[in-house]
């Protein structure tokens, strides 16, 4: 089975690095789609199904938390695993995100192994 992944980050270099990293995991990837912010991600979700979302928190127009909450309200999208990738260092905030139901948290700077481990954990080897 091949998987589709959505990357949501306002930094184009992070989107590029994540795309490359995902491609090197060895997991069968159908497509990787990028969005610049939460609003852009919602547009992409109208046209594509995704098996996993990697998402930054602090973005213009719509941040990651707002996007996550909107997806949770949707019967169609609420089950998609949502991994936060952020510079957020506050344990309080991270715990709040985990209580809301995110599937994982990766702090920047991240190693390729962090991404690979997360993908394998979600999809299996």
């Amino acid at each position: 089975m091949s998987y589709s992944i959505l990357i949501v980050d306002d930094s184009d270099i992070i989107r590029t690095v994540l795309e490359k990293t995902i491609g090197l995991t060895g997991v069968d990837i159908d497509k990787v789609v990028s969005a610049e912010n939460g609003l852009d991600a919602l547009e992409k979700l109208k046209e594509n199904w995704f098996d996993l979302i990697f998402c930054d928190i602090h973005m213009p127009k719509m941040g990651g938390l707002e996007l996550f909450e909107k997806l949770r309200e949707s019967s169609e999208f609420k089950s998609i695993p949502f991994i936060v990738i952020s510079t957020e260092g506050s344990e309080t905030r991270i715990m709040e995100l985990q209580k809301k139901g995110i599937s994982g948290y990766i702090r920047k700077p991240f190693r390729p192994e962090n991404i690979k481990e997360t993908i394998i954990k979600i999809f299996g080897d």
Partner: protein
Amino acid sequence: MDTKEYLEITTMSILEESAFLFSEPLESSPEIKPTKMMGCKMTFDNDQVGIITLFCEKEIAILLAANMLGCEEDDQIAIDSAESAFKEFTNILSGNILTKIYGTEVVINLSLPKLIDISELQLSEEIGDCAWFDVDGYKMVVMISVE
């Protein structure tokens, strides 16, 4: 540990972790050519309000991009991605500096990174703590000021 030490240790660590760049702190402000520098700032607030500012020679931004993307410094994609790399580096560094200084129990609101003009360099140096670095022969300064 004082603020300057936090700036030094965190910057060297994040340069290495995010872009495989090794750096050395400088004892004093070096001579620089303003036309070769680019700057970026982020504001933050928790109980205190402040600004983190970075200035670097443009070659460092290209190195950041090249190393993050896994390409050569003279590849066009590295040159085109330099500003994005510098902003993202500022973002990553700022988040980590603030965690080091204030700890992991404090909730800190950090702005989006914003590129700024070199004219803000002198003002920033005068009002806060700063640390200068040599990064692969090029110069960078990291500054934090708290109101």
